[in-house]
């Protein structure tokens, strides 16, 4: 009896751990601070199979696009989905078949297969993980359907299995950050001053961390008066960001700029700066900048704590549509395509931007 109960519980535990594993894989486009997914929103899942009958897909001159989305894991992801839904409308000449994979690769593979069966014109995938896609991509290739990737890359031996990849350029984000700091210091008349910087890095090895650190390092080389005192990982969390900043403040008396590789770390760093009796933001002693541009970052800028935040743009829809139009016209497209990413600082009308922003 006891053994039976135990084995039943074991099975339950296994099932639970599987769901947990499925959700955490791969690093999300908007860095680790993201909330991972649990929501089992069944209503969101439009199973592609019963979404539309196959015959309908070819009707008229609408271009049919199947989008296999990761799932609803964060504001960033929701905005990404919205971008596709609002771009691929019937008014624009598209028919979008949307599939929510609930963070499971097997669901995405199933969705791609059903897109192939329905003979869609294009398949767009935001892969949950990087590996294990070759077979299903071969199938799509044999069926002659071009595949476009969004956000995360796929690790396949043959590049020709997909047509193009659309996503954020983390190195570029880091460089934009460096340029912004240079300009900001110039405006303050501190362009030639000795500037001490520290970086609170993301989770070491995450693509957002690697790219942003690299981009900033490129800019650091251009300014001989900038000095990077220290870099530590805040693991994309507010708590660690605070702890690391506490230590920085005790180690270095004169910090001019704090670069946080996501917004949440910046919130922690700001608390640590205030607790040490210093001030930050546009009117303070220390300049704090961060990446991602989540909603709370706007609130922090409006409160005068954060100087600037550099965007990780989730609006991939228009760029994918552009690629599809080019392919329709028989033109060739670049394999790697970065979306445009901007930044926000306290000189802008943040409240109205915040109202308009989808995420």
């Amino acid at each position, binding site marked *: 009896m006891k053994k039976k109960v*135990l084995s039943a519980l074991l099975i339950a535990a296994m099932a639970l751990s599987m769901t947990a594993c499925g959700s955490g894989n791969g690093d999300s486009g908007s860095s680790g601070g993201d909330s991972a997914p649990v929501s089992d929103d069944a209503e969101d899942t439009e199973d592609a199979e019963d979404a539309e009958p196959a015959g309908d897909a070819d009707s008229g001159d609408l271009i049919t696009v199947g989008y296999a989305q990761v799932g609803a894991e964060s504001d960033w992801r929701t905005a990404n989905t919205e971008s596709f839904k609002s771009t691929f409308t019937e008014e624009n000449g598209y028919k979008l078949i949307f599939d929510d994979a609930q963070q499971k690769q097997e669901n995405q593979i199933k969705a791609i297969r059903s897109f192939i069966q329905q003979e869609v014109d294009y398949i767009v995938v935001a892969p949950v993980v990087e590996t294990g896609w070759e077979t299903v991509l071969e199938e799509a290739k044999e069926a002659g359907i071009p595949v476009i990737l969004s956000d995360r890359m796929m690790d396949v031996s043959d590049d020709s299995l997909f047509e193009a990849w659309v996503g954020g350029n983390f190195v570029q984000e880091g460089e934009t950050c460096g340029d912004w700091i240079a300009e900001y210091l110039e405006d303050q008349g501190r362009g030639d001053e000795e500037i001490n910087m520290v970086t609170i890095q993301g989770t070491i090895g995450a693509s957002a961390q690697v790219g942003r650190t690299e981009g900033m390092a490129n800019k650091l080389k251009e300014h001989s008066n900038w000095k990077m005192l220290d*870099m530590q990982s805040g693991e994309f969390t*507010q708590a660690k960001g*605070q702890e690391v900043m506490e230590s920085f403040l005790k180690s270095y008396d004169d910090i001019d700029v704090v670069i946080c590789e996501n917004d*949440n770390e910046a919130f922690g760093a700001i608390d640590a700066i205030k607790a040490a009796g210093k001030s930050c933001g546009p009117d303070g002693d220390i300049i704090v900048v961060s990446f991602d541009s989540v909603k*709370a970052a706007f609130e922090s800028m409006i409160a005068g704590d954060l100087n600037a935040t550099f965007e990780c743009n989730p609006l991939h829809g228009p760029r994918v549509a552009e690629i599809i139009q080019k392919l329709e016209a028989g033109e060739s497209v670049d394999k790697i395509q970065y979306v445009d990413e901007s930044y926000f600082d306290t000189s802008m009308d943040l409240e109205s931007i915040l109202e308009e922003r989808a995420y």
Partner: protein
Amino acid sequence: MNKTLKTITSKRLFLPIFCLILVLLINLVTRPDFFSIEIRDGVLYGFLIDIINRASELVILAVGMTLVVSASAGTDISVGAIMAVSAAVCCNVLTGGERAATEYASPLILGFFAAILVGTLIGCFNGVLVAKLNIQPMVATLIMFTAGRGIAQLITDGQITYVRVDSYKTLGSSFPGFPVPAPFIVSIVVVAATVLLLNKTALGMYIQSVGINKKASGLTGIKAVMIIFLTYAYCGFCSGLSGLIASSRIYSADANNIGLNMELDAILAVAIGGNSLGGGRFSIAGSVIGAYTIQALTTTLYAMHVSSDQIPVYKAIVVVIIVTLQSPGFARMRKAIAQKKAGAAEGKEAA
């Protein structure tokens, strides 16, 4: 002289304290200013303060974990997940279900109470599985380890829930007019209350006897099932409280990250404190010292500017050294060497 040294080194807590001092001594060499403490904005400020402040959650967890280990010869690996759940519950109660709030939707005390209650209830759930159903502790608590964060996500809709009210930050920063960090005070209260409870009643002895021999203590009339259940419930209570502090520090509930990997640190704290993971005799003081040692190590590595990607390596090296120093195998080796030396000396004298 030699004798006093021997009595000191043979004391149970000698090695854990020695290890803590060893970690701190590294700083004395590399950064003499490590030990300076000043008052800034009416609050104590310095690296040492960081250590006792940041270790608070771990200290509270280690207290609960010590009892669980002692009574059931197993570990509760769900403590980190329970922290996330309690933080999620607290923030959700305080915001009234919103994802961000600038004023309380319900009284602060209600949020605290709900969070600790939920933590204790999950502890009770673990307790029933382990004590009543005799499931192996690691398997039983694995359920909450995996499900806990999921529950926390469900409560917070998978988003970070912010409570932007100044009084909510108190528990994670400092009580007004009081220079010592609030988390430290809370942790000391928990430690003191637990030690008092265990020593002033027979509970401490019961827990040890159940851990040493469940059957034999059952024969003497101790309700082993009840004792084990209580330790898990108490561990849940401690986790709930830690979750509150962690949440108050960041005035939000981050279901993904609050208490992440804390279960491992809590178990390590118990082990570094010289407690056997096989159950039985325990020392709360040892575990508390263990918890401070772990945090001292982290803060030290930050202060020494070790780059992030190398920190785990240094941590591993230090932990290996500490655990080896305290292992029974090493103690035997030491004894053997001492005997050999004594033997050689005697031989010399005889000649």
